[in-house]
């Protein structure tokens, strides 16, 4: 059994996706993690100077918000979907609503439909005020039905 697969099982059991996120090099480098809070899986992008896209405002790079939204959606699918394979992103559509200020950013994904091959997730990112989202996204994932493949590829 692969290390990633073990971390995924542990994350689903505990709701703490920190160890799984740390096993994903890019998530670790960017500062993305996820954990259960009051029954909701909340993704976090910890602020760091390297996330800045516009130094004069300053504002977060739009790509980093896209990465947080996509990662949070993936964690949500891994948490609740009937699959242990990493979902493959087919399409992501991001709407940018407000500029991201240089502070931590949070995100929450909702599975809007779970089909046999496709999972649709709606995900929202905010900073201090959850009622004022800074970006939203719709993500469509391709999944392998359970029992066909696993995250370790076997």
């Amino acid at each position, binding site marked *: 059994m692969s290390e990633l697969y073990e971390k995924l099982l542990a994350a689903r059991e505990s709701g703490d996706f920190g160890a799984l996120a740390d096993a994903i*090099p*890019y998530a670790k480098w960017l500062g993305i993690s996820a954990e259960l809070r009051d029954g909701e899986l909340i993704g976090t992008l910890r602020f760091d100077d390297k996330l800045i896209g516009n130094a004069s405002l300053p*504002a977060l*790079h739009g*790509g980093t918000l896209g990465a947080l939204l996509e990662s949070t959606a993936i964690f949500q699918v891994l948490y609740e979907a009937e699959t242990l394979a990493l979902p493959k992103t087919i399409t992501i559509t*991001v709407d940018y609503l407000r500029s991201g200020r240089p502070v931590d950013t949070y995100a929450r994904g909702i599975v809007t439909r779970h089909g046999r091959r496709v999972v649709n997730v709606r995900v929202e990112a905010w900073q201090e005020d959850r009622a004022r989202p800074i970006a939203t996204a719709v993500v469509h994932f391709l999944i392998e039905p359970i029992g066909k493949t696993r995250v370790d590829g076997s």
Partner: protein
Amino acid sequence: MLARIAEAFTQYVPHNRALDLRLEDFADGMALFRLPYADHLVGNPETGVLHGGVITTLLDATAGASVFMKTWKPVPVATLDLRIDYLKPATPKRDVLAKASCYKLTRSVAFIRAVAYHDDENDPIASAAGTFMVSTKGRSVVEQAGSTG
């Protein structure tokens, strides 16, 4: 000129610098960036395939640069929306190129198309369409380069 503009897009955009994004070419309404492969940008440690978020950032940065190549004025831009279709995984250990075209510019909005690929832009890893607001708050990277250079 390429070197001067390329430097502006990295020096004044900290995240582009963190990713080591390089402006390789530009023309009227077109920008071409290179993302060098790096182990810390991997999304699946068992395959070595780059994370989708990196491709999103590369396409967003390239698309934003193509808007400037259309305006030829130091106007700041902000992404309004970006749709990305993932067509195939990036090949591990290989750099990714992104080419964006700003095909329509109005007073407030710029419309772009972009692709990410290894060798052939007609065989892309990802394809994107997006819109940008132009003349937003803040100063453009090129303006900052002008004021300090």
